[in-house]
């Protein structure tokens, strides 16, 4: 198959999968088989695109002319490839996990769940491979809407409240800030194509660029830059597999991915580096990192703590790309992948704990590591990775981010990075400590169902494995940063 066909397939495999899943409504076993097959097919499809892209090809495909001069079109560039690779491979693992979780917790509306999941992945592929801002925006909004039924899966009042916040924040930011930003870009540049080196040219004044950047950064609400982060903890009302894939991988990563993409391909790193009107961004991102970490420290609910940790980690990506140095852009791209595998492990663990023991609070976790050694072992690996301790992949990305900061001489940023590593340790390590070194309390229980444990061990392995073999993400990130 040619690269173009594969590109189209990447978009349509999940859609067709969703249809097939819907058709198998009455046969749960068949439905879940179809889910797994679809996920595997998508991964295969993305993997077979990897070779050409690593070799420097950028397959391109125009679907339909949406507005005069702006087509709905797809193009693969290194960052998109990295994102698609992360999302599609973690979907396979997540599907295994979902089957265990949804069955063990006897969740309702499972068909709707799997259908929306597959469609969300289609949107994610669309975002990853979008060739211009309008395509990106289209799939970005579609992702928000298609994940709404997932977030509100339980259908009770709490879910509805969470759903309102989720939709409220994401739609408000994207309609009020992002859409005008895109129209403005179109008016100023006459194009929306993602182009290496940026498209803005000299159409805007420096102050205008600063304003536009603000519209983009706060408009991409999925990146959860403060003060538009509240949707993320609110969305934790969703079943854990949703939180895991969507809020550690697809949705939030779509946010930071868009941030990186906009800065690299719309503004152009060189075009805006050194501009006084854009140097506020590292401060906002740095503030988000520290503030979110402090909130995480004070949260007793495990998923909420993870959510705030995500808010903080997302800002790592924003912070590092906002340094506008090649090394830091590389670090940002790597951190998208690193955070994905680490955080999904943590969410998997949280879901496994809930399934096996129905515990949701950190203070209830005394001694749980003795009853669920695999789960908590994986949790520890994920936690180490996010703190940035080798041998875990988080160390690699943080290393590059740190180097970028050093190269640009941002001492304040280095300070933030150091402080945040300490804070990360402060909110993760106590969980690991009490889980293994406190005596267990309450009724005895074992590990969660096998598919779940298998899945979380797999991602934990990946977290460590990518430390030793970071070649593929590194190569893609290097292509992006232009090494």
């Amino acid at each position, binding site marked *: 198959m040619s690269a173009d066909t594969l590109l189209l397939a990447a978009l349509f495999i999940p859609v067709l999968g969703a249809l097939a899943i819907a058709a198998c409504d009455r046969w749960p076993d068949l439905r879940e088989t179809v889910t797994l097959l679809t996920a595997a097919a998508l991964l295969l499809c993305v993997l077979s695109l990897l070779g050409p892209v690593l070799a420097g090809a950028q397959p391109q495909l125009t679907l339909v002319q949406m507005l005069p001069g702006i087509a709905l079109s797809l193009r693969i560039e290194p960052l998109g490839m990295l994102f698609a690779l992360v999302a599609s491979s973690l979907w396979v693992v997540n599907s295994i996990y979902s089957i265990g979780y949804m069955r063990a917790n006897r969740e309702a509306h499972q068909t709707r769940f799997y259908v929306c999941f597959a469609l969300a992945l289609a949107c994610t592929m669309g975002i990853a491979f979008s060739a211009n801002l309008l395509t990106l925006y289209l799939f970005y909004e579609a992702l928000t809407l298609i994940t709404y039924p997932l977030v509100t899966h339980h259908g009770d009042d709490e879910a509805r409240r969470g759903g309102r916040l989720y939709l409220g924040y994401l739609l408000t930011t994207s309609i009020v800030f992002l*859409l005008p930003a895109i129209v*403005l870009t179109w*008016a100023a540049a006459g194009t929306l194509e993602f182009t290496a080196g940026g498209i803005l040219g000299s159409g805007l004044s420096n102050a205008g660029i600063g304003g536009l950047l603000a519209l983009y950064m706060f408009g991409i609400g999925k990146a959860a830059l403060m003060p538009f982060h509240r949707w993320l903890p609110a969305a934790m009302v969703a079943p854990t597999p949703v939180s895991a894939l969507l809020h550690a991988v697809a949705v939030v990563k779509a946010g930071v991915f868009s941030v990186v993409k906009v800065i690299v391909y719309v503004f152009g790193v060189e075009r805006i580096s050194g501009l006084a009107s854009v140097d506020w961004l590292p401060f906002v991102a740095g503030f988000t990192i520290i503030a979110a970490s402090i909130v995480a420290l004070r949260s007793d609910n495990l998923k909420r703590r993870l959510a705030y940790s995500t808010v903080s980690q997302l800002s790592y990506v924003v912070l590092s790309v906002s340094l506008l140095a090649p090394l830091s852009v590389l670090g940002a791209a790597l951190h998208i992948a690193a955070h994905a595998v680490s955080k999904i492990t943590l969410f998997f663990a949280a879901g496994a704990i809930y399934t096996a023991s129905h515990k949701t609070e950190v203070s209830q976790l005394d001694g749980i590591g003795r009853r669920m050694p695999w789960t908590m072992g994986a949790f520890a690996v994920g936690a180490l990775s996010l703190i940035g301790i080798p041998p875990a992949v988080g160390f690699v990305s943080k290393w590059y981010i740190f180097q970028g900061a050093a190269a640009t001489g941002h001492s304040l940023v280095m300070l933030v990075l150091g402080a945040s590593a300490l804070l990360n340790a402060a909110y993760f390590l106590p969980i690991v400590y009490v889980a293994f070194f406190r005596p267990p309390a309450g009724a005895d229980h074992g590990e969660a169902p096998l598919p779940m444990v298998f899945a979380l061990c797999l991602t934990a392995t990946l977290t460590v494995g990518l430390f030793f073999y970071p070649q593929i993400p590194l190569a893609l990130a290097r292509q992006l940063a232009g090494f």
Partner: protein
Amino acid sequence: MIADHLPALQVVVPLLAAPLMLLVRRGGFAWLLATLVSWTALAIALALAFKVREAGTISYAIGNWPPPWGIEYRVDALNSFVLVLVSLVASVVAPYARASVAAELPREQHYLYFTMFSLCLAGLLGISITGDAFNLFVFLEISSLSTYVLIALGRNRRGLLAAYQYLVLGTIGATFYIIGVGLLYLMTGTLNLADLAQRLREVHEIRPVLAALAFITAGVGLKLALFPLHFWLPNAYAYAPSAITAFLAASATKVSVYVLLRFYFVIFGVPLVFGRLPMAEVLITLSVLAVVSASLVAVFQRDLKRMFAYSSVAQIGYITLGMGLANKAGLTGAVVHLFNHGITKGAIFLLLGGVALRVGSTSLARAAGLARTMPLTSFGIVLAGMSLIGIPGTAGFVSKWYLILGAIEHGYWGLALLLVVSSLIAVAYVWRFVEMAYFREPEPGAARLAEAPASMLVPAWIMVAACVYFGLDTSFPLEGARSAVTVLLGGAR
């Protein structure tokens, strides 16, 4: 050659069908004829649009009396676009109407209903196609009178008062229009629109012309429910029979918008309307008030039909906003929104007709758990609602894009902000429906409810599909709008 007489046939076919239905007095026959007539009208409108694109403006002299003495039918890129919209909506609504009417009206009124429907269609097509200002008035009254009857046919007795109020206001509006035309006639001695446009350039005594502009604006503004002249609309839409609400919302106000566009940009001309008078400021202010206030009012409605009726007032505000911007992007947004809002609101009201049929009411409270009992209907409303919001990938997004672009080109930053904020209000009212339909348990006893019959669901979903299709592949409405805008702005210079 029959092809030469297409402009006349466009109006004559539905006009002649009406008395035929009256003579036969059979509901089934009338329905069949109305459907056939609508489809014929659509075919003719498409043929005309094609011809206009190939060969430019078509001029047809009724009875072979040459213009400007005789009545001229004149089809250009602008009104062929409107003709397509009106006949398209009619051809979707007509097949739908059978089941809906059977449920809502007593048997002996069925043929009357379709008679009035055909007359209304003839009137709307006539308004769009005619090149004569007085002829336009006559068609305006034909469509209005039949509309009053159709609204009065509604099941609820409040429909009567709504029809009465609409009759009074509509007649005032039409009379204002004809006063304005009279003043123009006094100044120029012609009623032919194209001729009028030419001769007005030579008129030096400007005051009567300005008075005419004021009368026509107020008159047509009443018909198109320009804020604050919209008070007739919510009741009329809420109590009319379901199919009629869909038809009116999708076509009647749009035709009035066309009339205003024609008068502002082609006849009076940009220098007069926007140069001598602050009509841009007036239009933009009124539109902004319409968009914000009507959207807010929509959020607090307890009846779905009323909710979306208020939303119509707001959406018309978007169209007049584009007019007020008066630049290429803004006008493109206005004209394309004419089409996009037509299909979007058409879809919503058609689906609500199904709700009215099965649930027996369109009150929001009764829609609890609707997604369980009528999943296709609910999902259709949500999709069309997204088009109202302007989510990318739906038709509404395209209009919003151009309107924002138009505002930015003028440097109206506040306006651009307002446009996007108003979309959020649309999110609020659409989401009231979503939460009611998807998060509430159905009322006890509602479990027996089924989907609307296929004859209603299929036309409604054609509209919903159009909302999505024309959001992705925008070439048809956009090309139509762009050549229409060329007519509008070209005629002014």
